């Protein structure tokens, strides 16, 4: 069982840090490259949603991300103190719309759904806890 926990703050520049952490993790845990890249995307989409839409104040907030590898399953858990938001309840984007009508909203969650096996949302102690798993074939 391998485990790593990191903490970032709610600034969009931290997206670069996510990429670095995943690259390092991918080396240390021998993760396949496509898994690393898809988990990077999943994490970026969720974290940027939290950073852009999650807070009603201008303060600094911590976002904790736990990585776990066990029994061939890679797991990420995001814990934040942003406003209550369950990404699973977000509407699916219409991916058949032509250019003029296309919006970007909802795409992030769409990627999350498509690139993970299971997503579980919990709200506890005023925190959002989102757990995502992907099995490594």
């Amino acid at each position, binding site marked *: 069982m391998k485990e790593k926990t990191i903490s970032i703050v709610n600034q*969009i*520049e931290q*997206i*670069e840090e996510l*990429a670095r952490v995943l690259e390092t993790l991918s080396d240390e845990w021998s993760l396949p490259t*496509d898994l690393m*890249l*898809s988990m*990077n*995307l999943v994490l*970026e*989409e969720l974290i*940027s949603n939290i950073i852009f839409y999650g807070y009603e104040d201008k303060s600094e907030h911590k976002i904790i991300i736990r990585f776990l590898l066990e029994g061939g399953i890679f797991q990420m858990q995001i814990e934040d103190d942003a406003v209550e938001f369950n990404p699973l309840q977000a509407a699916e*984007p219409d*991916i*058949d*719309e*032509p*250019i*003029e009508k*296309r919006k*970007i909203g909802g*795409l*992030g969650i*769409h*990627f999350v759904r*498509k*690139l993970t096996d299971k997503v579980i949302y919990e709200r506890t102690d005023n925190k959002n806890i989102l757990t995502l798993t992907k099995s490594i074939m």
Partner: protein
Amino acid sequence: MTITTEKTAESLIIHVEGRLDASTAGDFEKEMFPLAQESEQNILIDFGKLDYISSAGLRSVLVIAKEQKRKGSALALCCLNQTIMEVFRISGFDTIISIFPTVDEGLNYLKSN
């Protein structure tokens, strides 16, 4: 993320290198939008050296695509790696933007548009 531009007789080629994510997509749009606005040419965006794209990156590409359409010019992308192609596929963006494996195929398409 860096952009280099290359002018051919018919089209403008934009070579993008690095990552188009939530922290770099804004810069991409800031540089690209005026290029699209001021040019009368069709544009080919070469993603051969792009390592990663997220929805923020897709958004910035969509902004350019909409501007080109508004002006009656064409846009094409080329040289996407497998992972990036997958992102375009999952999002359905591969059906609204013309994508080609090589620069030449992209340029040929733009020549006939």
